[in-house]
């Protein structure tokens, strides 16, 4: 959810862009990380754990913890909490094995 008004801060966002998450079009800004655009769109699950397929989302949001790793333009294990989104980027939930 994007904050519209804030008592102390003003948010001057960059340029609006769209990128793809598992084929679905997502709106974001070019000066925010991929995971932030996803969270702004209400998407909190970024991947699934290897053994038990448990959903994973952001934890540290600053590039330290590895909770946000996704495949970006074919490259695996990209830290989406720091990697900026770009127009037309292809983002995939790594290890597409979901618990049905």
């Amino acid at each position, binding site marked *: 959810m994007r904050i519209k*008004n*804030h*008592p*102390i801060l003003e948010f001057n966002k960059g340029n609006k862009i769209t990128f793809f998450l598992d084929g679905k079009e997502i709106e974001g800004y070019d000066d925010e990380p991929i995971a932030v655009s996803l969270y702004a769109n209400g998407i909190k699950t970024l991947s699934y754990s290897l053994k038990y397929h448990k959903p994973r989302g952001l934890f540290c949001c600053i590039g330290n913890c590895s909770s946000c790793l996704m495949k970006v333009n074919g490259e695996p294990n990209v830290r989406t909490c720091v990697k900026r989104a770009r127009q037309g980027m292809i983002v995939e939930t790594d290890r597409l094995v979901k618990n049905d």
Partner: protein
Amino acid sequence: MYEEKGYLELEELKERIPSKERLKKGPVAIIECIQEIPCNPCQSACNRGAIKEFKKIVDLPLIDFEKCNGCGVCIAQCPGLAIFVVWEDYSDNNALVKIPYEFIPLPEVGKEYDVLNRKGEIVGTGEVIKIQSLKTNSKTKIIWIKVPKELCMEVRNIRVVDEE
């Protein structure tokens, strides 16, 4: 005890509260800062020098209540938002309390709102008389609230419900 609860009971303020005589004379500032932390910008916040100079940066702030005229300029300069101004004899039935406020939406002057004590409990309602935005720090507003006289040492916050 304030360290276990996270809020003060009035008794724990002790000498930080002005005398009954001073409270009746006019508005006066009260600094509810009772812990020795490294922080001293309040000592230079008063144009009249009513906040005594610190010897060490961890000293507790002390107000000279005779020099203080309750103007409230210090309120927006305390990083801990711990300064309030109380005017007990604002009118026959009411006192005036000035509080720091950093939220939106801001209240509207002339309207009544729930007023809260240090624990965040609603203790009554109060009318907003004025909202100040000082040059030294325009993001911390100073809100003047008219409250029933007996609540002047209790009210330390106001609740503005977001209509959205």
